[in-house]
């Protein structure tokens, strides 16, 4: 699978060339949270990464780390994008208008991690009930029981 790796590295390079603010690391690209929409749109339309595989978030005390994985189903390669949002203002643009597949995943992150996705049409709790207080996946969540 050396081929796939090369394509992947090329994509990272192209991405960092296209957008100056993109930092590439070992097997992932770091994007500022305000540019996420721009980058993913470019990746989808220009680079052929039209399959949004996964979105997840993790709590790193002063910030939330968001991880996106994209797959190019034609060239059979995948790339990982990371971004982070500050804890005080956990907001990021929603990808659900580009990829319908992001819909439930963003709702789940909103539900469990408390990150607000701007532009999401139906952003409400998905696995927990509506009156639930707090976001359990956060590290400072206190178990009520």
């Amino acid at each position: 699978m050396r081929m796939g790796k090369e394509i992947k590295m090329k994509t990272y390079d192209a991405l960092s060339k296209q957008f100056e603010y993109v930092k590439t690391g070992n097997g992932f690209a770091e994007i500022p949270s305000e540019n996420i929409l721009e980058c993913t749109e470019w990746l989808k339309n220009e680079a052929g990464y039209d399959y949004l595989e996964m979105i997840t978030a993790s709590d790193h005390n002063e910030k939330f780390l968001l991880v996106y994985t994209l797959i190019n189903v034609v060239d059979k390669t995948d790339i990982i994008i990371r971004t982070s949002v500050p804890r005080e203002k956990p907001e990021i643009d929603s990808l659900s208008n580009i990829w319908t597949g992001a819909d439930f995943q963003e709702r789940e992150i909103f539900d469990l991690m408390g990150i607000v996705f701007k532009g999401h049409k139906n952003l409400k709790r998905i696995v927990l009930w509506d009156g639930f207080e707090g976001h359990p996946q956060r590290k400072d969540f206190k178990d009520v029981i």
Partner: protein
Amino acid sequence: MSFKTEEYVLNVGPQHPSTHGVFRMRITLDGEIVKDVEPIFGYLHRGVEKLMEMRTYKQGIPMTDRLDYVSAINNNWPYVMAVEELAGIEVPEKAEYMRVIMAEMQRISSHYLAVGSQMNDMGSFYTVFMYMFREREKLTDLMEMVTGQRMMYNYMRFGGVSQDFPKEFVPLLRKFLRIFPKYMKEYEDLLYDNEIYLSRTKGVGILTREDAINISTSGPVLRSAGVDFDVRRDLPYSIYNKFKFDVPVGKNGDVYDRVWIRMEEMKQSASIIEQALDMMPAEGKYQTKVPVVLHVPEGKTYKRIESPRGILGCYLESDGSDKPYRCHFRAPAFINLTALKKLMVGQTLSDAIITFGSVDLSMGEVDR
């Protein structure tokens, strides 16, 4: 004079024979035509991801079993692979073969259940279901022989598997593989020519290629829409690049294609098992010794496998302690559910139900 009709809301689930778990759909109906559908779930939410943060790495393995309870072994795999990558644990070659064999057996048994219950949704009153359970039972027995369990196998370990194959296992598995095509032929006779079956499945629940990719569906749902993508072949993990197998791809993206893909995948899995049995080294370790309380070095990783339901991924973050800092599972059924609205709206209630069945979800995985 004209008739005035009114739309009404039908609540399907959480207790409903065809929701395959505690799943609820709020369906807006116009007569029998589905106008809108809103999936509601979370009834089985146990907070597995949070629970895993509170348990040591090894104690997390039984938790993963309980995600997709129909294919427990496949669930172990991405988690175990992620930990192995972060901790730098090597898996002996024999163990890789054992993992492949068990996971493919699990795939066959999961697809048996999927197709069987699909036929049950279609009203074939448990006949196909029972026939398929006849073979599934044999598989379950075989897996019980190896793992000691019938459902929550808890089989994979960091650096291998929990137990070696007993000496009786391989001959019996080969015997199963001999009888397997005979029964598959029977099911094809039973399904593929049956006019009622054809009329109910063809052209029902169509998902286009563009939608399938846009909605991030995976597994048989994605492949039925004509997308030729299988993680086992395209982003190979473990030792899948050593095997030769076809990836069945559908044309229309309807229910017929989804069932057909599952049936074909079962055959391919059987052929993979056969190849693996031939290639498996007779001698060798089945496990690398790993401490009970494993301290995984700091790092982040994402691993994916092709589970019977689609791409099952595990995102793991470690902070160097003995417990995962963050463990997220990309549950295929959860994301396939996003396609539900696209699939169901505009169909009659009966077709909507079998379309829902053809997505083949297991609620343990959706709610987590």
